[in-house]
């Protein structure tokens, strides 16, 4: 779409070499100037996170790469790890220098166990080339990375739940504050960044903040990697500038006839065709990159049913709004599918969804009613008085 050099044409280790020549505040100010925001979906400014961890006083600090990519419809991190693992490890090393950490941990989800051999080989290659280990490339930086395998839990994508798993506990999110940048893994300052965020950080150090800012919007700078699946002609992984409209994206992937697009996975929102002019950016429709195209023949209640079963299964069960709320929404959805739900009860379900958004402890519970609420708002004509087809 643009003649600019893309993610794929990076000069190897340019970011690391640049970072080694800079002092710590300069690295963070470069990331800050780029406007990079967390690519896992939350959109927290990366430089702010790094700065907190850099400022914290501790005997040890950690850089954690969140490769627990579990959001339905997301697979970009798998592709980045398969094709550009060096870039991710380079980004972790840059982060290590920036915050003053000597240990990096890649938290890889159990479902991606088949990637581990490749990643260990890449790490070994980096140690051989002195890109990891003691005195990296003749500088004073000591940094190494190990891989920790997850054991199958969506919730571990939440940073405090991920840290609980690293420490050998159930993946139940902690109260925040304190944030991991102050009290993270083993009580030490830890930054938890998405795979893609770290890869971009390496690119930014290598090419400069201005290169990154040259595309995107004022509040959402740079490019983003998207995972596109569902009812479209060309599903797969795409790189687009932030701020493109849903319609532009659908045209690229061959999904122009969609009746809706689920943006941000099960925890995201369902955008109906009338809103396809909206843009994908943190200030409009935020996303970790999951785009599920829903074709004209899709039954929105089937889609919702799938999402709610997912949340009932993956809720950690720690707080009541999420544990009970998702179960109630699923029951309500089955009533809608069977055509036995009154309008008054549907309204109650929507109120429950609102309660879950404000009263749940972590992002899972807060975002799990989103899809339900957006379908109720946008596809009302599909919901009431249904005649069940599978009696």
């Amino acid at each position: 779409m643009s003649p600019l050099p893309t993610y794929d044409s990076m000069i190897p280790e340019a970011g690391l070499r640049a970072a080694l020549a800079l002092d710590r505040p300069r690295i963070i100010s470069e990331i800050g100037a780029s406007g990079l925001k967390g690519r896992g979906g939350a959109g927290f400014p990366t430089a702010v996170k790094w700065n907190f961890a850099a400022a914290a006083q501790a005997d040890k600090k950690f850089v954690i790469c969140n490769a627990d990519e579990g959001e339905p419809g997301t697979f970009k991190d798998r592709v980045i790890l398969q094709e550009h693992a060096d870039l991710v490890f380079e980004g972790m090393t840059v982060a290590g220098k920036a915050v003053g950490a000597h240990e990096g941990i890649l938290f890889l989800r159990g479902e991606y166990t088949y990637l581990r051999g490749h990643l260990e080989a890449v790490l070994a290659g980096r140690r051989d080339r002195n890109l990891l280990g003691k005195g990296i490339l003749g500088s004073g930086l000591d940094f190494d990375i190990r891989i920790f395998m997850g054991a199958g839990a969506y919730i571990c994508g939440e940073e405090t739940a991920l840290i609980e798993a690293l420490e050998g506990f159930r993946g139940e999110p902690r109260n925040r504050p304190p944030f991991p940048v102050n009290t993270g893994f083993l009580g030490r300052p830890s930054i938890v960044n998405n795979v893609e965020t770290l890869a971009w950080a390496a690119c930014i150090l290598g090419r400069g903040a201005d290169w990154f800012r040259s595309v995107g919007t004022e509040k959402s700078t740079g490019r983003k990697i998207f995972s596109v699946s569902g009812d479209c002609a060309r599903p797969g992984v795409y790189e687009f500038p932030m701020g493109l409209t849903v319609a532009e994206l659908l045209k690229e992937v061959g999904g122009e006839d969609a009746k809706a697009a689920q943006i941000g996975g099960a925890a995201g929102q369902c955008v109906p065709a009338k809103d396809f002019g909206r843009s994908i950016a943190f200030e409009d429709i935020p996303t970790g990159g999951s785009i599920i195209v829903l074709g004209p023949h899709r039954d929105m209640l089937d889609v919702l049913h799938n999402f709610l079963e997912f949340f009932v299964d993956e809720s950690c069960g720690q707080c009541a709004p999420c544990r009970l709320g998702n179960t109630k929404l699923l029951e309500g959805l089955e009533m809608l599918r069977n055509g036995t739900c009154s309008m008054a009860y549907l309204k109650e379900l929507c109120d429950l969804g609102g309660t879950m958004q404000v009263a749940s402890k972590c992002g899972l519970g807060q975002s799990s009613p989103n899809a339900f609420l957006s379908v109720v708002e946008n596809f009302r004509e599909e919901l009431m008085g249904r005649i069940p087809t599978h009696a």
Partner: protein
Amino acid sequence: MLMTERDRLASEIRSLAAKLGQDRTSLIPILLEVKRKYHTIDSYAMQVIADLLGIHPVEVNSVVSFYAFLGGHRQGKFVIRLCRTISCDMQGKSRVERQLENDLGIRFGETTPDGKFTLEFANCMGMCDQGPALLVNDRIHTRVTPEKVHEILEACRRVFGVHAAETKEVVFK
């Protein structure tokens, strides 16, 4: 369990802990290895691990019961995890599900009586553009059709042949 089997399990766990570390942060790595090798994490194994890490066995059980890839229950030598999340669902996961049940004679959540296969669902496994997807232990299969199910199962069954060693590598076409 025979005493000798228990002794062997305990010594195996001790050597795992020596390799992976003997503090709580090694709990999940140790449990994953035990599950991979023994297809179960029984209460005796949990007790041994708890003693080694200096924690209560209930703590070990709380972790075992939380994670989808752990779980104390006994599973087959091949655990087949079919992705049930939206994109795979839209690409025909239900027919693959049905055919797996037909060919193995069990339902999802069950293990064949000979202890060879377990059928489970998994949530999104990151193959949304190439669904339906399933994992056979750690190995991913994409664009699975009901016809392909037989082929996948046969590749697994070959390691159980009369002359096949337990450790033989499974070769998929």
